[in-house]
């Protein structure tokens, strides 16, 4: 996020795209609700009528995968109508001409055929976005989990740069992190390309610093990203260590992965709970949950905050950092950390972005009356950084990237006639290893389901509560049908949380060529009714997912 969560309430225009904010980020949604109540304009772009659309001024229910058409067309309008922030573009960006040329033909009229958005409405929203000073963009996986996810992000960034919506409060570009410490894990260097603090592994100067600090030789070639690891599993990859992740449940095209894992010689997992990957593991190391450990998490707004131990681990389970130290020692490296605080200090000493942060400092209330520090924080007296690019674009000049529309890898055809998209619900979390052990979420969402539009349901003889089979070219799952106007005609949606109905048996593991992120958000699928009159045994309680809910 370039802005902070607290700034959202000040925004006057919010473009929420590919984010089911109220379910995936309820607290950020509360800030958005607050802005709307204050009078801000909320525009939600989503093929599905997510809850936020109920308070939005406009819901652009675009066809899946048509984001680039929409965004480029907005850019076209902004340029054509002379709404570009000329001064900002001239002084703080480069390569604008390329985008200007690339979007020339993306008129709202042409876009309509791809997106389904009326040209006048698209123009209105483009103008409003360009002309409102405090206008922020908020997005999540609905933007990135596409084969053209990087293009989507570039197209958004182009809008931000051409309107100069950067470097001010409540005005910027804000990816909302899906997990508690995605930011922190990346910050810590758990990526094939970077050491901690986003220092490239192929930068000789950085390499030298780390070699000296760690007294070893380091590989200057970036490693494989997660998607590449999964695609080469059993062939290139022969041994795998997994901490805190159920790859079999969470990675796309699970059938393929399960076959590939047979070719892997050694698998160790470090986990607090049994999971699907455990079926393939050679060693299982029982670890801890957040309430049993010390350390820090870094949230979406780059705020580093303390995690503190509240209870002791059960049985012989051990804190993860202790286990990792033991593994290192067993491998002959002498790690003698006394505490997570000491580990953090080592990282901070090697990454200038975090140099001013320590556990000690995080234990105090900060100058702004809040807890936690937002990096970059280079020195121990630096207050942290509330929003990025405040002193001009960080890389020097904001780089425009021209993008053009590419269709999704897979679109509906005669065999698989529906667009399938996947996502999260409020009540469960990722693989639901935690939330399916909780009474409330189970009471609300007891089992896996697929949302299907009444028209499509009728065509297939499906009634609400029927058990149905959802199939794609890669596999199938059996779930309950929720007949709902939340989805567009021609589209279905299923949550990703259920081990017995893994959405990733269906999804496409081909992904974005740049990030390696798989196309979870669009693939072709079909739904058929199972058996005779087998109705839903349990009920979904509460009227939100009813047939006449939002979007009716």
């Amino acid at each position, binding site marked *: 996020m370039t802005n902070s969560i607290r700034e959202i309430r000040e925004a006057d225009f919010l473009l929420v795209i590919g984010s089911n904010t109220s379910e995936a980020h309820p607290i950020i949604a509360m800030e958005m609700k607050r802005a709307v*109540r204050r009078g801000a304009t909320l525009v939600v772009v989503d093929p599905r009528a997510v809850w936020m659309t*109920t*308070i939005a001024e406009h819901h652009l229910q675009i066809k899946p995968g048509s984001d680039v058409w929409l965004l480029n067309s907005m850019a076209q309008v902004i340029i054509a109508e002379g709404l570009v922030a000329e001064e900002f573009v001239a002084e703080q960006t480069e390569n604008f001409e390329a985008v200007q040329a690339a979007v020339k033909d993306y008129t709202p009229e042409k876009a309509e055929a791809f997106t389904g958005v009326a040209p006048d409405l698209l123009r209105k929203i483009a103008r409003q976005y360009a002309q409102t000073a405090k206008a922020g963009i908020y997005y999540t996986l609905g933007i990135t989990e596409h084969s053209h996810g990087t293009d989507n992000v570039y197209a958004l960034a182009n809008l931000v740069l051409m309107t100069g919506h950067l470097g001010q409060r409540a005005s910027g570009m804000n990816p909302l992190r899906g997990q508690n410490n995605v930011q922190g894990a990346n910050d810590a260097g758990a990526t094939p390309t970077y050491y901690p603090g986003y220092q490239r592994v192929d930068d000789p100067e950085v390499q030298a610093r780390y070699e000296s600090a760690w007294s070893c030789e380091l590989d200057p070639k970036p490693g494989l990203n997660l998607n590449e690891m999964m695609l080469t599993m059993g062939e290139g990859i022969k041994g795998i260590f997994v901490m805190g992740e159920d790859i079999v449940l969470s990675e796309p095209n699970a059938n393929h992965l399960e076959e590939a894992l047979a070719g892997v010689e050694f698998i160790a997992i470090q986990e607090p709970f049994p999971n699907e990957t455990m079926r393939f593991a050679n060693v299982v190391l029982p670890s801890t949950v957040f309430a049993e450990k010390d350390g820090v998490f870094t949230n979406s707004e780059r705020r580093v905050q303390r995690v503190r131990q509240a209870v002791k681990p059960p049985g012989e389970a051990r804190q993860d950092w202790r286990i990792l130290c033991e593994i290192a020692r067993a491998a002959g490296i002498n790690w003698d950390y006394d505490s997570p605080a000491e580990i953090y200090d080592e990282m901070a000493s090697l990454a200038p972005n975090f140099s001013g942060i320590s556990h000690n400092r995080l234990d105090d209330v900060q100058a702004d009356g809040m807890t936690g520090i937002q990096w970059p924080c280079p020195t121990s007296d630096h207050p942290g950084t509330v929003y990025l690019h405040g002193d001009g674009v960080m890389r020097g000049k904001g780089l425009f990237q021209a993008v053009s529309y590419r269709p999704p890898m897979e679109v509906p055809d005669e065999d698989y006639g529906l667009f399938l998209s996947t996502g999260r619900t409020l009540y469960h979390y990722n693989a639901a290893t935690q939330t399916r052990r909780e009474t409330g979420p189970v009471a609300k969402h007891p089992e896996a389901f697929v949302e299907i539009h009444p028209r499509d349901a009728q065509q297939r003889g499906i009634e609400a509560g029927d058990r149905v089979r959802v199939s794609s070219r890669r596999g199938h799952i059996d779930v309950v049908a929720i007949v709902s106007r939340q989805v567009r005609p021609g589209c279905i949606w299923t949550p990703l949380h259920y081990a017995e109905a893994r959405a990733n048996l269906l999804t496409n593991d081909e992904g974005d060529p740049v990030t390696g992120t798989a196309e979870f958000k669009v693939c072709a699928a079909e739904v058929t009714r199972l058996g005779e009159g087998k109705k839903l045994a349990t009920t979904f309680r509460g*009227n939100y997912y009813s047939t*006449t809910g939002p979007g*009716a």
Partner: protein
Amino acid sequence: MCSVSTPTDPHSTIPDRLASAGGLKKGVARGLSRDTGLHEADIYGVGSFYHLLARPEKRVRVCGGLSCQLAGSREILSACQAAGLPTEEISCLAACDRPPAVLRDRRTLPMVTIQDAERSGGKVEDLCSNGSESVWCGTIGPQDAAAETLCLNLSAEPDWSGSAFKAAGTMGSSALFDLIEESGLQGRGGAGFPAHIKWRAVADQAEQERYIVLNADEGEPGTFKDREILLRRPDLVLEGLAIAAAATGSSEVYLYLRGEFEVPGGVLAEAIQATTKAGRFPGITFHMHAGQGAYICGEETAMLEALEGKRGMPRLKPPFPVEVGLWGKPTLIHNVETIACIPGIVLQGGTWFKDLGRTEAGSKLYCISGHVQNPGTYELPLGVSLDELVAAAGGYVGTLKAFSPGGASSGFLPASERGRALDFKGLGAIGSMLGSAGVVVLNDTINMRWAAEEQLRFFEEESCGQCAPCRIGTHYLHAAVKRGEEKSLGLTHVADVAWQMNEGSICGLGQAAALPLTSALKYFPEDFA
């Protein structure tokens, strides 16, 4: 969802929609939520506030007001229940002059007898007042008054010439405000606030969108004068409203009638239709709105909430409605009687009106009921005494013991005050009030502890529940004064509770609600022995 509502907000339609759906039955709120996009709990909260909506299974409601009780309403209640009618008690139905009154669905039946209840055979539709309920008016007087001494003159034929509206138009707003100031017209809903100040305040607002609201939520126990005006002189009401709208620069007039006024509402609706068809008041639109059963909605800001389709909970003042009123816009609110005085003042002059009064300006409609010979509505000079009023109503029944000069909120006064002028200032000076001039007379057969208990029961039931001093205070005082069923709290702390209610309550209901008990304790301590 949105905090500022507007005239087009579906929220304002909620009470009507609930009424059309037959009240707050299970599932109704969810259905309306789907129709309107409003939250179902909000709809439920609104429905549960109004007694005509909250318990839809009850279709027969017997008045529990003092005057009806003196006429045996509790026996009627038992008889109705015994006959198998779905019956409950209800707060004053504004029919104290024809007791005991019963509400059948939305229709007020006068002088219902035990035989009427028995004759119904348990069929709600067959319950009637000896076959003669369809349209009824109360007694008016005095019989011998000369027309030129009456501003409202209820016995006269309606005058649809529109001459006052035209005259006011010719006069211009500023001159009209001066005229109203000269007339000394005070608000006749209860507070006695000078009318011209409100008119000028609304006209002076920067905001150009303004509203006129007619308060016809006549619910103060003992009061029924507005009912008579609506039935007999709807011309005065509509013309007065039209003059107010034109003079204050508004075009939208909202008329809020209590939900039990089915018949007066029908008369008014017909009059509006005819008026609109004839184009009598060009540029002015009348909107009828039926209340759904809540005394508190007679409080002007609670009424605004009700018009906006919300729970009728009074707003904090300031800001006053003349600045921030209906849908947040400047709003002129007047009681039926006040607005009905306007055409007379315009046609006959401010001084004429002022001189109609004795101790304060104008003639005044006094409602009288209870232990008197001819209960009814009497137009007399403002400032007559109880004895004079009762003389006009044919005399006392039995020996006078106590009276309420202005509804339940005015508490009780002893017989020794029978010669005191019934006006705003004088009654205020002795800790009572003229209020809506709903005078209830009690003779020496009445125990004042019982009377106080009945009034407190009314206030507890009709408290909106928003603020603690009133919500808990009315409950406390009712429990404290009640004998029998519950363990008594005693009367030791009544004075402190009453002080708190008066000091701490948001609106006039809570501020006045202790008065029936404190005044009864003060003047009739022997009844509590």
